[in-house]
């Protein structure tokens, strides 16, 4: 890890330079009353001091809501198949010669950056998904600390925090006014460069990145983070840490509380669609004119047909089994397989659920 200090103006110049090199830059932007990660063409429009986290994560950059996995058309009564991944890979090959294939996400929240570890676990496992793998290879994540928590946020209960850097190539934290005065830099950031990709971006794109004086920055950085965390945590609802307990959850699989927990669920699937870590998908046939395609679309275990057999038998027939699956998959099965929760505590599923189901509350009933 390398540590830098950078003035806000220089940081902006650097971002402008990145855009000028032809890399795609994605940052939180307002769109129809929501804040979403979208491509930006002017560095000035990037809000480096955003108060709130974006309404949705940037999952769609790596795993679009709908995508063609292959196409075919009929020639003399035989299907002729065209591999859609070959295009992605040809693009990427041209791209590696220049830098056009690189996508830089600026201002990723710690929860959104951490969700990449979950998605990587799924999509890069054997056999790797070529669509995801390509985009992931070309993705650079510049995270930022959260300056304010929202009521639904509970990242600190799942092992993350407003200053955690998991999944980031570079992590930015604004320097307090007093520090900026001391350093005489108006307003500025401390930047942790955490990966080779991050190092390359700092080295290759010209701008003024300053290494702080002195040798022991870790104490100083930790203090800065601790102070930042205290300030944000003061705004968060008091909640207890969710200690890993797959066995407790499993033991209570048949607990009557599930009935009460899931009673209101409408099986609408909104929770999965706004979740940065949900990754279930459907494969279906679509047609445009003479061209057919096999499409992959986001799906959700909340839907009744998700597990419905063709015979009519359904292993998860009601909202109870399906909501329980959501909680168990995130806090038990995935945890067992990987050692991490499949939930980054962003609280979006809580905020957007039409009937106010709260996954933290559901999980927190158990030790």
């Amino acid at each position, binding site marked *: 890890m390398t540590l830098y200090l950078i003035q806000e103006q220089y940081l902006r110049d650097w971002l402008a330079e990145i855009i000028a090199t032809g890399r795609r830059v994605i940052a939180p932007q307002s769109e129809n009353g929501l804040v979403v990660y979208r491509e930006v063409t002017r560095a000035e429009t990037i809000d480096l001091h955003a108060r709130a986290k974006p309404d949705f994560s940037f999952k769609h950059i790596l795993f679009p809501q709908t995508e063609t996995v292959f196409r075919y058309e009929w020639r003399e009564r035989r*299907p002729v198949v065209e591999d859609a*991944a070959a295009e992605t890979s040809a693009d990427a090959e041209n791209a590696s010669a220049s830098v056009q294939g690189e996508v830089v996400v600026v201002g990723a929240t710690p929860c959104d950056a951490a969700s990449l570890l979950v998605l990587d676990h799924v999509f890069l496992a054997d056999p790797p998904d070529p669509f995801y793998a390509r985009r992931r290879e070309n993705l650079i994540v510049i995270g930022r600390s959260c300056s304010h928590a929202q009521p639904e946020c509970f990242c600190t209960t799942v092992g993350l925090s407003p200053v955690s850097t998991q999944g980031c190539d570079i992590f930015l934290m604004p320097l307090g006014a007093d520090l900026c005065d001391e350093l005489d830099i108006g307003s500025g950031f401390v930047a942790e460069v955490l990966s080779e990709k991050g190092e390359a971006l700092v080295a290759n794109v010209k701008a003024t990145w300053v290494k702080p004086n002195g040798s022991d920055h870790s104490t100083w950085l930790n203090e800065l983070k601790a102070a930042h965390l205290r300030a944000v945590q003061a705004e968060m609802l008091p909640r207890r840490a969710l200690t890993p307990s797959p066995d407790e959850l499993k033991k209570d699989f048949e607990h009557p509380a599930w009935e009460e927990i899931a009673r209101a669920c409408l099986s609408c699937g909104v929770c999965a669609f706004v979740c940065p870590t949900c990754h279930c998908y*459907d494969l279906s046939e679509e047609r445009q004119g003479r061209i057919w395609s096999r499409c992959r679309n986001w799906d959700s275990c909340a839907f009744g047909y998700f597990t419905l057999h063709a015979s009519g038998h359904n292993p998860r027939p009601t909202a109870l089994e399906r909501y329980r*699956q959501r909680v168990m*998959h995130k806090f038990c*099965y995935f945890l*067992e397989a990987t050692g991490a929760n499949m939930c980054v505590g962003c609280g979006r599923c809580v905020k957007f659920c039409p009937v106010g189901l709260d996954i933290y509350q559901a999980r927190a009933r158990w030790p």
Partner: protein
Amino acid sequence: MAMKNPYVPSILTVDEIRDETPDVRTLRLRLPSNGSRLSWRAGQFAQFTVFGVGECPFTFANSPTRAEYVECTFKLMGKVTGALRELAVGDAVGLRGPYGNFFPLESWRGRNLIFVGGGIGMAALRAPLQFVLDHRKDYGEILILNGARTVADLVYKEEMNEWSAFDGVKLIRTVDPGGETPEWDGEVGLVPHVFEKIAPTPSDSIVITCGPPIMIHFMLLTLEKCGYPKERVVTTLENKMKCGFGKCGRCNVGSVYVCKDGPVFTAAQLERLPKEF
């Protein structure tokens, strides 16, 4: 650096069509002529595409010892299986796979094997049966218990006769009460009931059972009652699947993905899973 796209199927060709029952059909598919080969293990499955319609999973119905072609036996259920029935000899079928785990046939050498299949579930037992018969001397006594709703619904009728002609192979067929015809000389009764009646001794045998969820449920209870150790009772699950390789999330049951960690499970393994299959 092209990464393989696991969603793209190979294109096979329908070579032969055989009707097993009024709604069950077996297709024999020819491998692509570009010399590509396919190897699989008995118990594995593949995703079959009817182009212009969609995809669905079927088990390999033929043994890897007969890998010059691929066979699948399917029951008419809905969209894809309906379209599959429309295909004629010479038509294209997409296939990607093999996926999933398989029957540990190597480790069953020397054992007595009891195959219990109900309805279309028999399709999953055909590959291991063919394998065992192709290595007849490696295995002990073989008992096949095959059930269906009615006499007309019994699959692989001719093959069953060939199989039962092997030394040390015993075949028992049964139909549900009311499903018999005047000429019927087999058993009448539900599969678990007939099993209990003939009650083969558990010593040294492996039971491989496949059929509708309700039959499996009662078979497992019966086997427990008859004293079969759960480690020696093997079945296959048929959860809804899309990708086939552990990503799309469809087939997740507890800590396993049926497509990747299954579809073959022992009764002991099933006992540790939530009952969501």
